[in-house]
């Protein structure tokens, strides 16, 4: 724990409370306070932190981390403590009974044969080798789990369609594995590393010099957490929103007007990676952007991260966010993260604690919206 404190500069903490005052979870969950967790760590209460279920409540959304006056890397601190807790035998209370984490763990088997390319329809052009690789992430698996209320594979199809439009026939590999984001953020570092090694092998074999992701978590993981594994290579990793916005800037594609939109900044794309403008530029090129009160650095998280917890807190945050989105008067809430999409749709899938009209706003993935708005299609 001393190393984690040192690495994350937690010892700089002056207990000013700005973290907890920024924390969206602390507002709906009295038992959770980033400041108190750091305070305990500095008092050497390792066991208490590891055994506390609130360790898994943090969304690692970085609302606190981005503005800590002492520059404590709180999300990294949580990640470190989770790994320590995991090694001591604790684990998160995964949503879906841990099913998603199981699927991710299974993907770390070297000789696994996956059937993950069935979604590639005849109208889509893909390759087995080439300069650009599309990292699809968990979309094919999500399709099987969540197709009752979202169409995850439409994101994948839209991404390939847009890449094709730019004259790119991307590599989509049957040997791709989960990027390992969720396991890494729930303490299972060992399995994360296995997944990273397998993915890096696959990437190197593809000959790609550029990777496009449609998931901000894949983006963050590949760009930051794979840095050691990708050392010595010179591979550019971009999010699809950056890719589309550059196509628009160069007049390579044109989008039709598609209405008034408001935008949900995914934590990984925004606060983690600092990408706020690219998705907004895409939206502005196909419609009017109306901002929610909490936007950019101040954006609210969709309520669930790494499938670590999904409780009353999450639902409350999701409903509040949808109310905020609806009150902007926008026709749709656009996000650029498949998980934000799933979580925000899930919130209104079953029982809703408020009147339906208050949260009745379509949630659409940015790539899907852009693909639908492609001129001449």
């Amino acid at each position, binding site marked *: 724990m001393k190393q984690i404190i040192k690495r994350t500069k937690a010892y700089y903490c002056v207990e000013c409370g700005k973290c907890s005052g920024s924390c969206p979870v602390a507002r709906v969950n009295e038992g959770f306070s980033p*400041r108190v967790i750091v305070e305990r760590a500095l008092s050497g209460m390792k066991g208490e932190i590891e055994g506390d279920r609130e360790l898994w409540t943090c969304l690692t959304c970085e609302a606190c981390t981005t503005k800590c006056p002492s520059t404590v890397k709180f999300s990294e601190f949580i990640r470190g403590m989770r790994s320590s807790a995991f090694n001591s035998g604790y684990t998160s209370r995964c949503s879906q009974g841990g099913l998603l984490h199981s699927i991710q763990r299974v993907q770390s088997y070297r000789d696994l044969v996956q059937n993950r390319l069935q979604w590639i329809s005849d109208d889509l052009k893909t390759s087995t080798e080439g300069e650009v690789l599309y990292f699809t992430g968990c979309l094919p698996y999500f399709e099987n789990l969540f197709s009752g209320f979202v169409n995850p594979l439409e994101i994948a199809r839209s991404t390939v369609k847009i890449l094709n439009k730019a004259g790119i026939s991307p590599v989509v590999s049957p040997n791709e594995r989960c990027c390992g984001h969720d396991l890494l953020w729930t303490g299972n570092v060992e399995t994360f590393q296995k997944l990273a090694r397998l993915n890096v092998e696959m990437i190197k074999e593809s000959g790609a010099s550029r990777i496009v992701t449609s998931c901000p978590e894949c983006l963050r993981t590949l760009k930051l957490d794979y840095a050691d594994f990708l050392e010595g290579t010179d591979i550019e990793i971009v999010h699809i929103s950056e890719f589309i916005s550059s196509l628009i800037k160069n007049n390579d594609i044109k989008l039709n007007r598609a209405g008034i939109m408001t935008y949900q900044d995914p934590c990984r794309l925004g606060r983690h990676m600092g990408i706020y403008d690219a998705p907004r530029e895409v939206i502005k090129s196909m419609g009017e952007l109306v901002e929610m009160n909490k936007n950019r650095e101040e954006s609210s998280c969709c309520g669930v991260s790494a499938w670590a917890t999904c409780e009353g807190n999450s639902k409350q945050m999701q409903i509040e966010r949808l109310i905020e989105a609806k009150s902007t008067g926008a026709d749709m809430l656009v996000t650029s993260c498949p998980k934000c999409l799933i979580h925000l749709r899930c919130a209104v899938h079953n029982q809703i604690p408020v009147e339906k009209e208050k949260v009745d706003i379509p949630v659409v993935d940015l790539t899907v919206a852009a693909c639908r708005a492609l001129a001449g299609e």
Partner: protein
Amino acid sequence: MPHAGRWQVNEMKSVLVIGGGIAGIQSSLDLANRGYHIYLVEREPSIGGHMALLDKTFPTNDCSMCILAPKMNECNAHPNIDILSYSEVMDLSGNAGDFTARVQRKARYINEEKCTGCGDCTARCPSKVPNEYNGNLDKRKSIFLPYPQAVPRVMTIDREHCIYLTKGKCGNCKKVCNAGAVDYEQKDTFVDLNVAAVIVATGFDMFDPTHMQEYGYGKYANVITAMEYERMICASGPTGGHLETAPDKEHPGKIAFIQCVGSRDLQHNPYCCSVCCMHAIKESILAREHYEDIKPYIFYTDLRAVGKGFEEYAVRGEKEYGIKYIRGRPGQIIEDASTKKLTVWYDDTVNRKVKGLEVDMAVLCTSLIPAKGSDKLAAILDIELDEYGLYKSRDELTAPLDTRRPGVFIAGYCQSPKDIPESVAQGSGAAARATEVAGGAYI
């Protein structure tokens, strides 16, 4: 041996004082009274600095301008002081005892000898621009006096906005000026001054909190800075001393003062500004003196009441004026779009509770940062800056007012964070240091 008699200067030497805030004014008066000649260079149209913009001073609630204005006027009337306002030092050559300073006198398009400061021109000027002396809360004209007590009492034309200077039209001010003081042809001029010593007292600027998105400054109407609050609560300010909130100009019921905005923050300025605890207490007390029903909340990190009478002031604020002190730096302010009320989200670190407090106004007590251009001036004077961008002392402990260049001294906030009395003390201290190089002795 005790000093007796009076200070005598054998040969009248000049000293250059850069910056006409309270520290520079004090240095100038001390030296002028000892028989030195002073060039007081101020880049704004008027001397006075930030103290001239404050309503009251802590911990006595004395009227700031009532203390300052007589000193400003004394500078103006003193036979040994030449005020070079609207001017900047561009070069300094030579050595201690014999410097040559080149000063740029920016064209104010007014003949200072002729202008009486009557204000006829201002009344007829059609060009209105945000009034930086009132926190941009109202408008001033393009030909203006910064405030009624300005010294020197001469007008200045803002060349960026004057219709005649930008478009060649109007000319109203020249037409109505009975003194014939308006001169649109005036150019910037340079003067070389021979001085024995230099005192730098350039003060500070206010940190702009716009990019700290969590507090919504610039986005929410009822989030203001402490400097704007000072102007608002000042009887000579833009609202005549009334606290006004959006949307209906009602006075606020609850006010949140947020401390350390940009201070003690490794992402912005790591140092303590040293004054925001006390000015927030003062501003809370003033609020209550104006309106009995106001509830002030001060969100502090550590309440630093270290000066004489400060702790008592803080206690009185709580006991007599109902200030509620809350230890915690708020994380976010959210505005209700229809009522314009603000919810301040904070961690009450003493009671370990995260709460949202609804207030009508939030005052950001922002950091005080090195005055704009300090780095440029440091290069001109060949003195060092410290890691904060303030001027570096030759030795923090034993020679705080000296710089690495002999004969160049520093005083006030530009040396290190401090309040008014400390700035005055340093102003006097730097004056005393300057006499060593400028010569003279008690006889």
